[in-house]
């Protein structure tokens, strides 16, 4: 039994380990280890295409995780207090957002937005004062952020709601019995208690957005994110550069995940 577990862990971690090992390869062949060097990291970090894609990915991940955390938390708090058709509708929306495959979300966003933009652009051009170039709506960073935020909001609502459900209601009742304003109760009782969950939701959202390939593939227009860059370079052939990018991406994700995990656990202990 123990031996079996060891084998599964090896299966899970050896491929990742090999990528990390080969990223320190001194040779130029991707699959032959020829001495230790960090030169591929240097090359990667000075490649303007990689840095551009990285910047885009960071902007998208940060903005969409932030929007999702704020709006998702607002929705989760409100859903706690309502019943009836509105709540059923929201449960349905969250269910749909999570159930529908990412690829279908990507496609739907692409053709939905392109269709809407095709209607709006002539309208904007007509409304704009003459002599100025009218703005042209198109697919790009904005549409990608909007698509990621939609999906991640569902994720944040699920996480924050689980936390709210596990919360001690008597504190909130006590607070309002003592004539605290609703906003005061929220700021002093609810928010501190759900904050670890919000932060964990933010970190998970960030990781998800940063690693997402399939939605970005459809929705990012002519912009390149890091996963899109990596995907197209793999298509062109395996290079040590991809190993270096992969190792860095895995490293950053691991760091964020462990932080999120610790936050969720510490939050869990506090409430008990």
């Amino acid at each position, binding site marked *: 039994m*123990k031996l079996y*577990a060891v084998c599964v862990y090896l299966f899970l971690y050896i491929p*990742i380990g090999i990528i990390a090992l080969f990223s320190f390869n001194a040779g130029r062949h991707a699959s032959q280890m020829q001495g230790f060097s960090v030169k591929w990291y240097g090359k990667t970090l000075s490649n303007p295409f990689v840095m551009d894609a990285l910047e885009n990915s960071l902007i998208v991940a940060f903005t969409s995780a932030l929007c999702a955390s704020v709006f998702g938390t607002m929705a989760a708090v409100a859903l706690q207090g309502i019943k009836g058709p509105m709540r059923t509708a929201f449960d349905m929306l969250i269910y749909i957002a999570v159930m529908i495959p990412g*690829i279908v979300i990507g496609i*739907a966003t692409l*053709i*939905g937005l392109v269709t*809407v933009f095709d209607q709006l652009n002539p309208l904007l051009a007509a409304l704009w004062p003459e002599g100025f170039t009218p703005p042209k709506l198109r697919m790009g960073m904005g549409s990608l952020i*909007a698509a990621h935020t939609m999906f991640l909001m569902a994720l944040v609502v699920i996480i924050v709601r689980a936390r709210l459900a596990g919360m001690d209601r008597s504190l909130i009742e006590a607070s309002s019995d003592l004539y605290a304003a609703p906003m005061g109760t929220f700021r002093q009782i609810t928010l501190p208690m759900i904050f670890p969950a919000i932060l964990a939701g933010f970190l998970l959202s960030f990781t998800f957005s940063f690693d997402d390939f399939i939605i970005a593939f459809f929705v990012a227009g002519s912009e390149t994110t890091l996963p899109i860059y*990596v995907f197209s370079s793999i298509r062109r052939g395996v290079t040590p550069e991809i190993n270096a990018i992969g190792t860095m991406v895995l490293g950053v994700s691991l760091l964020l995940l462990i932080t999120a995990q610790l936050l969720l656990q510490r939050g869990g202990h506090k409430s008990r």
Partner: protein
Amino acid sequence: MTKRTRNWLLLAPAGAWFLVMLIIPLTVVFIFSFGERAPSGGVVLAFSFEQYSNLPARWTAFKNTMTLAPIGTLLALLIAYPLAYFLAVKVSPKWKIILLVLVIVPFWTSILIRSYAWIFLLGGRGIPALLDMIGIEGVRLINTPFAVLVGIIYGYLPLMVFPIFVSLDKLDKRLLEASSDLGAKSWQTFLQITLPMSIPGIATGCMLVFILLMGEYLIPAMLGGGKVFFVGNALVDLFLQSRNWAYGSAVAVTLVVVMLITVTVYMRLISRLDASREDVSIM
């Protein structure tokens, strides 16, 4: 401000966002799937089932998805179950969390990079080269259904382990002791207590993995090399290469419908199998 107004205001941004970025786009896909392809590459709105009647042209993609997704799910279950059992029953509480986190963490890291690792391992200079050295020659692993299955198991194993672990962890260990004290052999205990108790976990794990596999694109694209392709790959081709939006929409709608039917039938079966089913959280 009344409580009601406040709740409405809190829900407004999320509601509007879901409407614009989820409901409207999905509706457009649905409407387009009944349309016709315009000569310019767009869609002419219509009410025809022409696109749906052309579906057999992409039959291979559906066939591959509907065979490799269940096989991959089953293999992941067979590999995950003993590990989940080990973590829940055999490991001391101190190590339990650490070992569990070690299983889950890969799931939240880039599937792209993790599939790439297997291109590396299964490609000409990876495992086949090693086999060559010990005298087994001419083995081709990459771009086969085997490679895609390895990628699937590697990618989704963590998602299978977690819910099974949760259901086994809730199991009262005294039941197992009682069973063996009463003279049951260990396989009897397993079949009569452990396995039935873990059915909700198995059901959740299989459903999660299966749903994600139905829409998979990356793993077949990277490890199937155009030879083993899923519906997802057909969709990328239809929308990004041949730009046939009407037909692509019909394929997408069909995928979602097939998925919903499979999941509904599956849920029915499971709830019949285990009437007192409890819900197991995802993560």
